[in-house]
C-alpha cells in the first residue's frame, strides 16, 4: 500500500536510495485518529506560525531513520499539493512543514504522513511546551575567542623576540592592538565563567569556575595596567588562550544527544486530545480540559488518560506501562481503570472520576519533585581547597615582598593568580568527560551529562527491573502441560492461533511452528477471554484460566477440544541470553536486587541465577520507589535499571537511573542515562570505564599541579615574564588534552568495548 502511494507520485527513487527502506511493521491507524486536528483550539496550540496564506508546523516523526526517509519526506509536496515545503532536521527527527491552509489542512497532512509510515507523534507536551532556548552562544563565544587568541599570539611575537629601539612605535601599536583584541574575549567569550561563578557564590559555594574567573579578571587588569603605563605587553595571549581552551572543552562536554530526551514526564506520553461522548456524539477535546464525569471514548491501542470507570464495552488493559505486569488485564463494566493503561481490546467508554493531573500515574511524578540533591562533582570540591591554597600563597608572598621590596608586591601577587588558574584542572575534567561521553555513546550508552559519569563511580548497589529489562519483551518462552497433542491436533491449534493477533496467540502459533495450516471456520475472538473456531470439524477453543474454572499464578492459555480441557500452554518471559553472566559478573562487585511488578511465577528461576540477591515481586511503582529510598537510607548508592513508566519514580529517586530501550528511538522515562537493550551486557565494562575516567582526571590534575608549581616558582619571585606564561600555559593545556585523549582511548580499547 505504501508502495502504491509512492509509485503513483513518481517517488520510486526512494527504493533505490537505500538497501532497506521503510520500517517493516506499521500500526494500522484508526480513520478518525487525527480528527481532533480539525478542532480550532487544538490546532492553534500545535501550529507555530500562521498568516493569511500559509501555516508552519513542526512535527516530531520518530520513524525517521535513513536518507530515504529524508528524500521521501522532503518531496512530500507531491503527495499533497497543498504542502509548500518540508525540511527535515535529521538528528531531532523533526519535520518543519509549511503549507497553504486554503488547499490542505493540518489533519490531511497528518494523515498523509501516517499513510506512508511516518505517523506524527503529537503529545500533551506539545501543548504545554515552552520554547527550548538552544544555546548557540557558546559556539560563537568559542569562535570569537579563537579569533582573538590567534591574532594576539601572532602580535605577541615581536614582544618575545625583542624589537630593537628604532621600532619602538611598532611595539606600542602591537600592544594596543592586543588590548583591543582582548576586549571581546574578556567581555563576551568569558561570560559563561563569570555567570557560573557568580551563581555559585550566591549559593555560598566555590565552584571551579570561581578561581578561573578570578584569574581571568586579574590577568586582564594587570595586562591593561602594563599597557597603559607602558611597562610591558601584558598577558593577553595567556588570558585569551585559557578562555579559548576552556570553552572548547565545554563545547565538547556539552555536546548533547539531540535525538534523545532525558526528562520526559507523563505529558509526553499522553495524547493531546481525547474523544468525549456528549449526547451520543464524539467530540475531540484537549486533554487538560477533560473534567470529572466526562465520558471518554477510548479506541483500541489508545492510552487511558485519566482514572475512570468503564461504562461501555469490555476492556483489556495493558498496564505494562504503569505496573510492569506483562499480561493485559480484562475489565468489565463498572470496573475501575487507571490512567496509563493501554486498551488493547475494542473501543470502550470510560467515565472520568479523577482529573488528568490527579490520576495515580501522574501522582508518581508530582509526589517527588525536589529530591534533586545530587552530589557535587569531585572537581568542584577540589577547587575549594585549590582556591584556599592559592590565596594563602598569594598572601604570604605579598607579605614577604612588603617587607623586602614594596615595588614587587603587585607583580608577584598578580602573577600568582595568573599562573595558579586551575584551568588545567578544568580542562582535564571537561576534555576527559567529553571524550568518555563520546566513547560511551558510540557504544549506545547515552548519558544525560558529564555528572552522570561521576555518579556511576559511586554506585554500590544495582537494582534491576525484571520485565523488559532482564527479560526480552518480544520473546516468550512457552511450555505445554496436559494430554500430549497429536501431530494433527498441533496443526489445528496452530491454525486457530494464527488467526488472532493477540500476542499470546501469536506466540503459540510461533512456538508450534507449523507451515501447512488447515482452514478455520467460524473464527471468533472474544476480547479478554480467548479465541474459538472449527478446524477440520473440531470445535477448538484457546482461552484464559477463568474459562477452565481455574486460577493460575502464571500466565497460561488453556486448550479445549470439543469443550473439554486438553492441556495448557504456560508462558514465561525469556531472559536476555547474557543475563546470567551479567548478573554473575556484577554480583562480584555490587549488591544486586531485582524488583518486578509481575507475579511470583519466576521466583525460583531468578533466585537460581542470583545467589544472595534480593528478589521482590508484586512491586507497584510506588513500592519500587520506596525500596530505592530504603536502600539509600541505609547509605547505599543505588543504580536503578528499568524500562517502563512503572520504573519512572524509582529511576528518578535512584542515584543513577538508566533506562533500557529496545530501540533508541522509542520513548523512555525520565532518567540519567539511556542504554540500548543489547548493550546491557557490557554494563560492567562501562562502569569500569567511568572509574578509569576519574583516575585520568586525577592523573592530569597532578600533571597540571606540576606545571603550576613551576610557574609559581617564578611568580613568587616576581619574575614571571609574559614569555614564560605564554609557554607554560598553552603547553600545559595542549599536554592535558593529549594526555586525556590518549588515556581514555587506550583504556576503552583495553576494556575491549565493542566500538
Amino acid at each position, binding site marked *: 500500500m505504501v508502495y502504491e502511494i509512492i509509485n503513483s507520485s513518481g517517488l520510486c527513487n526512494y527504493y533505490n536510495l537505500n538497501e532497506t527502506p521503510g520500517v517493516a511493521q506499521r500500526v494500522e491507524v484508526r480513520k478518525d485518529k487525527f480528527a481532533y486536528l480539525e478542532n480550532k483550539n487544538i490546532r492553534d496550540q500545535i501550529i507555530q506560525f500562521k498568516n493569511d496564506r500559509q501555516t508552519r508546523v513542526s512535527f516530531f516523526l520518530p520513524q525517521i531513520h535513513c536518507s530515504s526517509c529524508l*528524500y521521501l519526506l522532503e*518531496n512530500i509536496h507531491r503527495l499533497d499539493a497543498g504542502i509548500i515545503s518540508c525540511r527535515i*532536521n535529521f538528528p*531531532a527527527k523533526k519535520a518543519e512543514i509549511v503549507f497553504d491552509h486554503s488547499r490542505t489542512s493540518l489533519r490531511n497532512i497528518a494523515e498523509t504522513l501516517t499513510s506512508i509510515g511516518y505517523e506524527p507523534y503529537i503529545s500533551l507536551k506539545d501543548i504545554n511546551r515552552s520554547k527550548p532556548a538552544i544555546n548557540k552562544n557558546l559556539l*560563537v563565544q568559542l*569562535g*570569537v575567542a579563537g579569533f582573538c587568541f590567534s591574532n594576539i599570539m601572532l*602580535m605577541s611575537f615581536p614582544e618575545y623576540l625583542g624589537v630593537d629601539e628604532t621600532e619602538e612605535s611598532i611595539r606600542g601599536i602591537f600592544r594596543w592592538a592586543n588590548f583591543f583584541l582582548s576586549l571581546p574575549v574578556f567581555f563576551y567569550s568569558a561570560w559563561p565563567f563569570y555567570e557560573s561563578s557568580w551563581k555559585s557564590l550566591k549559593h555560598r559555594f566555590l565552584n571551579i569556575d570561581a578561581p578561573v574567573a578570578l584569574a581571568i579578571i586579574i590577568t586582564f587588569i594587570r595586562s591593561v595596567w602594563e599597557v597603559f603605563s607602558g611597562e610591558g605587553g601584558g598577558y593577553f595571549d595567556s588570558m585569551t588562550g585559557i578562555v579559548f581552551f576552556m570553552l572548547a572543552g565545554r563545547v565538547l562536554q556539552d555536546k548533547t544527544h539531540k535525538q534523545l530526551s532525558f526528562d520526559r514526564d507523563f505529558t509526553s506520553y499522553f495524547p493531546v486530545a481525547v474523544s468525549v461522548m456528549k449526547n451520543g456524539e464524539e467530540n475531540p477535546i484537549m486533554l487538560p480540559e477533560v473534567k470529572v464525569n466526562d465520558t471518554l471514548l477510548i479506541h483500541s491501542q489508545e492510552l487511558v488518560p485519566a482514572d475512570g470507570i468503564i461504562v461501555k464495552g469490555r476492556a483489556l488493559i495493558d498496564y505494562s506501562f504503569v505496573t510492569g505486569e506483562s499480561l493485559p488485564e480484562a475489565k468489565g463494566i463498572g470496573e475501575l481503570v487507571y490512567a496509563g493503561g493501554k486498551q488493547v481490546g475494542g473501543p470502550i467508554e470510560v467515565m472520568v472520576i479523577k482529573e488528568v493531573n490527579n490520576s495515580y500515574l501522574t501522582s508518581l511524578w508530582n509526589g517527588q519533585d525536589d529530591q534533586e540533591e545530587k552530589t557535587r562533582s569531585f572537581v568542584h570540591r577540589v577547587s575549594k581547597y585549590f582556591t584556599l591554597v592559592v590565596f594563602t600563597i598569594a598572601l604570604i608572598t605579598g607579605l614577604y615582598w612588603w617587607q623586602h621590596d614594596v615595588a614587587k608586591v603587585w607583580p608577584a601577587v598578580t602573577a600568582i593568580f595568573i599562573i595558579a588558574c586551575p584551568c588545567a584542572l578544568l580542562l582535564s575534567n571537561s576534555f576527559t568527560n567529553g571524550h568518555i561521553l563520546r566513547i560511551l555513546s558510540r557504544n549506545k550508552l547515552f548519558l544525560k551529562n558529564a555528572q552522570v559519569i561521576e555518579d556511576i563511580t559511586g554506585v554500590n548497589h544495582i537494582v534491576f527491573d525484571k520485565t523488559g529489562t532482564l527479560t526480552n519483551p518480544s520473546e516468550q518462552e512457552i511450555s505445554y502441560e496436559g494430554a500430549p497433542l497429536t501431530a494433527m491436533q498441533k496443526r489445528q491449534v496452530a491454525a486457530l492461533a494464527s488467526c488472532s493477533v493477540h500476542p499470546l496467540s501469536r506466540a503459540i502459533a510461533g512456538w508450534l511452528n507449523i507451515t501447512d495450516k488447515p482452514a478455520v471456520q467460524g473464527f471468533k475472538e472474544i476480547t479478554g477471554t480467548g479465541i474459538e473456531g472449527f478446524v477440520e470439524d473440531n470445535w477448538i477453543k484457546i482461552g484464559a484460566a477463568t474459562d477452565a474454572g481455574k486460577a493460575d499464578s502464571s500466565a497460561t492459555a488453556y486448550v479445549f477440544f470439543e469443550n473439554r480441557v486438553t492441556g495448557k500452554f504456560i508462558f514465561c518471559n525469556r531472559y536476555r541470553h547474557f543475563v546470567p553472566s551479567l548478573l554473575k559478573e556484577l554480583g562480584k562487585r555490587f549488591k544486586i536486587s531485582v524488583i518486578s511488578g509481575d507475579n511470583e511465577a519466576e521466583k525460583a528461576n531468578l533466585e537460581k541465577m542470583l545467589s544472595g540477591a534480593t528478589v521482590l515481586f508484586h512491586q507497584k511503582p510506588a513500592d519500587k520507589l520506596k525500596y530505592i529510598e530504603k536502600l539509600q537510607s541505609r547509605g547505599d548508592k543505588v543504580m536503578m535499571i528499568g524500562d517502563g513508566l512503572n520504573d519512572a519514580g524509582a529511576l528518578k529517586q535512584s542515584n543513577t537511573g538508566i533506562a533500557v530501550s529496545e530501540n533508541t528511538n522509542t520513548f523512555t522515562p525520565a532518567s540519567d542515562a539511556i542504554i540500548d537493550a543489547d548493550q546491557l551486557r557490557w554494563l560492567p565494562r562501562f562502569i569500569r570505564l567511568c572509574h578509569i575516567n576519574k583516575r585520568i582526571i586525577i592523573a592530569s590534575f597532578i600533571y597540571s599541579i606540576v606545571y603550576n608549581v613551576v610557574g609559581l616558582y617564578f611568580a613568587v619571585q616576581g619574575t614571571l615574564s609574559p614569555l614564560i606564561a605564554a609557554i607554560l600555559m598553552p603547553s600545559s593545556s595542549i599536554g592535558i588534552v593529549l594526555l586525556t585523549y590518549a588515556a581514555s582511548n587506550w583504556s576503552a580499547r583495553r576494556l575491549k568495548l565493542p566500538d
Partner: protein
Amino acid sequence: MSVIIILLLVSISVAGLFLAAFIWSVKSGQYEDDYSPSSRILFEEENRK
C-alpha cells in the same frame, strides 16, 4: 607608517571576515543538523510544478 601596520590591518580584516562567516553559519543553524544536508545534495533535483 611601516608596511607592517598595513599588513597587520589586512590580516586582521581577512581573519575578521572569516569570523563573521563563522558567526553567520552558527546563527543560521548550520551546526544543528549535520546529516541531512550531506544527503540532500545527492538527491535528484526534480522539477517542482
